[in-house]
């Protein structure tokens, strides 16, 4: 029960941070990606500001065996940069740039995002739903070619 409350708090603080930083505004995200236009530096400050507390947190986590609520802490992921990471990130980036929303801000802005925001979320959920099957098919195809 307690971990549901702390998850709510974490999600809430994440959402509040997205709202305060302006990252729920698609024009600010696209303005940062648009290096040939009227460049908006905000996103760099958001990412930089978010990384700072997390550097501290990872260092604290490295010295602990378990989280405060007793879960094992996440292991360090492998370092292999594989096809899925590359192609997936390129696809994600293309969608992100096209409309200016990524999963966090899309959910944080659901209450004022209107029809456009809802259509984006539903499409994103549909994408997530078909992703495992797409991944298998894509890799089979890629292996057949190479």
């Amino acid at each position, binding site marked *: 029960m307690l971990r549901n409350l702390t*998850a709510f708090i974490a999600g809430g603080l994440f959402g509040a941070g997205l709202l305060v930083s302006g990252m729920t505004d698609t024009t600010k995200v696209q303005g940062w990606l648009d290096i040939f236009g009227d460049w908006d530096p905000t996103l760099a400050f958001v990412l930089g500001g978010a990384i700072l507390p997390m550097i501290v947190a990872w260092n604290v986590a490295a010295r602990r065996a378990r989280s405060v609520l007793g879960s094992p802490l996440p292991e360090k992921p492998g370092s292999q940069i594989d096809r899925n990471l590359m192609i997936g990130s390129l696809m994600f980036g293309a969608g992100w740039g096209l409309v200016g929303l990524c999963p966090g801000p899309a959910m944080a802005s659901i209450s004022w995002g209107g029809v456009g925001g809802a259509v984006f979320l539903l499409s994103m959920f549909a994408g997530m739903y078909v992703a495992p099957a797409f991944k298998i098919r894509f890799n089979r195809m890629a292996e057949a070619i190479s």
Partner: protein
Amino acid sequence: MPDPDNNEAGPVAMQTGNTDMPMDWIWGLVGGLMIGSAAAFYLLVNGRVMGASGIVGGLVDRTGWSTWTERLTFVAGLALVPAVLKPFFEAPVSTNITDNVPAIVLAGLLVGVGTRMANGCTSGHGVCGISRFSLRGIAATIFYLFAGGLAVIVFRHLFGSI
């Protein structure tokens, strides 16, 4: 980086309560620190990586069904808290999303499939990955920034829309 000699971006703009462009980077930094604190809290208290696509994706494809309550309450906080806070903002808050529906559908599908294939998005790979100097996180961030920049350039400057 802000120009230190540019008064508009400095304390003068702050004192006059100017909420236009020059102040945005300060709010970006404050909001960023809040996002990072949320991720730090979720890591150290719940023992989880705060990746938006992973948390919600595990609900959608049911791979994370064993921890569904924790995921759902996270998403509830993420959606509800900004809804409650929004009326207290002086400046109008809008997503300014395009009204091009096919573009929105295509973007949503790409974001959904792409983040699940790559196992992370801006929060998981960007915030949580870079901060632990994970090669995968850094590589993913380079790839999605490259594709994002390319998409904006192609659609804004070549097609002149979106």
